[in-house]
């Protein structure tokens, strides 16, 4: 084995410093995203749960509120983000539970890569799942509430809000999945932290739907961008200490 290993090291077949270079870092992120998407598109376990939940929430709001067209438009931003937030919690929980239940999180942590690569891999996967669900929910919502949601500004706000929500959500889901009360713990941890993102997202979305000027909605959008940067930076720094015993 030693000879094989030595020869492999010399030929570059096995890279011991995989985790130490930028190429390895990005390859690891890509590998995790590939693995998550491949597994999900085979089972549809996570997206289908998020999607069914989202559609049910929208339907319940639709029938419960019984609003006229004008009032419906005024509650759109709130209903939309409440739906994304609750469905997102389901997805984050399930995504990390799949890693934990078969010991796969340990498998990831055993790889010789910088552990922040694992965080970013899971973050991009979770973001992809959330965006897929949102892409399906938006047209359904548009039809049910008779509101055009396909506005570039609104799509940008949804992207920014989803990035903020998923970045901190991935970190907190990694933390909560290691406890017995993970299903209950994640929303308890997540919602107080992500409240500011949701508030900014609702304000920005509402402003766009009300056709306010860019100057009027600049503040919540800037706030969203700031939260995104802070949450990603904080998660990048904290992930290693969260996953280590």
């Amino acid at each position, binding site marked *: *084995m*030693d000879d*094989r*290993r030595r020869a*492999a090291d010399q030929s*570059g*077949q*096995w*890279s*011991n*410093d*995989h*985790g*130490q270079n930028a190429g*390895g870092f990005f*390859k*690891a992120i*890509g*590998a*995790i995203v*590939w*693995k998550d998407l*491949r*597994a*999900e598109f*085979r*089972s549809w*376990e996570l997206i289908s749960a998020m999607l069914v939940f989202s559609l049910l929430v929208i339907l319940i709001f639709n029938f419960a509120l019984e609003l006229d067209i004008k009032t419906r438009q005024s509650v759109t931003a709130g209903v939309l983000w409440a739906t994304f937030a609750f469905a997102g919690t389901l997805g984050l929980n399930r995504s990390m539970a*799949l890693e934990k239940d*078969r*010991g*796969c999180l*340990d*498998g*990831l*942590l*055993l*790889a*010789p*890569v*910088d552990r922040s690569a694992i965080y970013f891999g899971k973050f991009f996967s979770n973001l992809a799942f959330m965006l897929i669900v949102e892409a399906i929910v938006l047209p359904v919502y548009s039809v049910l509430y008779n509101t055009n949601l396909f506005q570039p500004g609104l799509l940008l706000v949804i992207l920014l809000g989803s990035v903020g929500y998923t970045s901190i959500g991935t970190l907190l889901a990694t933390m909560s999945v290691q406890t017995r009360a993970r299903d209950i713990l994640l929303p308890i941890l997540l919602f107080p932290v992500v409240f500011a993102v949701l508030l900014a997202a609702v304000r920005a979305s509402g402003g766009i739907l009300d056709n306010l000027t860019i100057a009027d909605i600049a503040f919540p959008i800037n706030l969203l961008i700031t939260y995104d940067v802070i949450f990603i930076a904080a998660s990048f720094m904290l992930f290693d200490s969260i996953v*280590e*015993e």
Partner: protein
Amino acid sequence: MITVNKLVKRFGLKTVLRGMDFAVQPGEFVALLGPNGAGKTTFLRILASLSRPTLGEVNIAGFKLPGEASQVRARLGVVSHLPLLYGDLTAEENLRFYARMYGIANSQERITEVLEMVGLENRRRDLVRAYSRGMQQRLAIGRAVLHDPEIVLFDEPYTGLDQDASSMLDVVLKTVAAQGRTVVMTSHDLARAEELATRFDILSRGVIAASATRRQVKKTNLLEFYKQALAG
């Protein structure tokens, strides 16, 4: 190959490892035996860099833990009683994923080699969730040696396996050891440990209570040695 000095691990107020010393030479197959709660899994998790020592020194293949964990992980394979595999991926996809994580170039060739070694070449395109427990454990060993590690850690690899699966795992474990790797295995199964290991260390109350080579144990027997170590 592995040197551990005065290792202490505490979880809150509970001390699991109490100044443990341990050393393994290259190519040795060490069976780490002990009752439940002795700290075997905790110790293996520290060696695997999954857990941080509270006090003490851990040196693996010339690299210190936790400071040089990335270099240690590149030289280490781990098999636990959980498979660390994704049920919704095929065996080949699981190995391809881990090959990417370990930065293995020409992974296809290596994946085929590993699948042949664990006897799953003809099931490579089956989803892992359709595998039996024994097959999953064999694939888990394939995953652990995919990057050709110098050291392999086995944590209770026989847990949940029936006789046939255990016998097949024996063959794979012997193959792994015969390739010149250094192996540390925790187990409750004294008979299997006796058959496979070249050295036996008994872990009791957070320290190595006794250590003996296969030759030394042959004079008595492993069960007697084990009982004496725990009694002492």
